[in-house]
């Protein structure tokens, strides 16, 4: 049974200096939304050197394609694409995303991210406001289902000042 260690997952990504933004459910949870998820979603910068750093981090985490019995690792050519790479690592399930919402890249969303200190690391996290916008735009049932909780969290956060 895999033991999830999200602190280690973030530590390895940070130590390898991977440029990434935490998006999805973990981004919401880190900002105080009471949501639960079963994987970590990161949006990474598709750029030659960053992809090499990401490849090293994934190798250290023993990342292989999730749901594929061949346990295939992710090669550089694969990581240079904008698609979703769903991985299982020895620190937990990790969705390595080249783009989200039909083509939004790291550079498109870095301005909508903030830094949070998590387990002693400074990590970039997509803002709750932007996350709400993206989920609303996606319009899928699973995204819409999360919206009331995210919006309530935003309201409570504003109320608390």
């Amino acid at each position, binding site marked *: *049974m*895999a*033991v*999830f*260690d*999200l*602190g280690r997952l973030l530590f390895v990504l940070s130590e390898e200096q991977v440029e990434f933004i935490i998006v999805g*459910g*973990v981004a919401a*949870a*880190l*900002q*105080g*939304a*009471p949501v*639960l*998820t*079963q*994987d970590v979603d990161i949006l990474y910068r598709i750029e030659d050197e960053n992809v090499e750093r990401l490849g090293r981090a994934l190798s250290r985490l023993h990342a292989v394609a*999730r*749901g594929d019995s061949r346990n295939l690792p992710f090669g550089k050519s694969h990581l240079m694409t904008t698609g979703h790479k769903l991985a299982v690592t020895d620190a*937990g*399930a990790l969705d390595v995303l080249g783009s989200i919402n039909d083509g939004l890249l790291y550079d498109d969303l870095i301005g909508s991210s903030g830094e*949070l*200190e*998590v*387990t*002693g690391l400074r990590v970039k996290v997509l803002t709750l406001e932007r996350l709400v916008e993206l989920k609303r735009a996606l319009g899928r049932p699973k995204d819409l289902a999360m919206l*009331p*909780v995210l*919006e*309530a*969290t935003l*309201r*409570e*956060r504003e109320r*608390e000042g």
Partner: protein
Amino acid sequence: MGKGEVLIAARLRAYGLLVARRDSSTTAVKRQGLCYDPQVMAAPLSPSLAAIAAADPAKPDYDENGVDLSLVRYSLSLTPTQRLKAVENFMNAMASVRAVLPPSPDSTK
């Protein structure tokens, strides 16, 4: 919690004994070393205590979409590291459950 216990807990809250705690079961009361007189508990609440009871902080608080705002406030009170730990604990709990369940025939995860 039975109906009687709910009433006892409500009265304890009204007397300010459990205002800061959401865990108001009889067991929790005993664990905290609190004791109460059944006659005092059976007495009608004074107007001032009734007002406190009406503003019961442990009363469920939902928004128009049914979102539990007490849970939102609790989550906001945590640090990002604590929130990450909560997610991690959930993931590990789910993994434990999956480990003892037979795989679904159409499962790919």
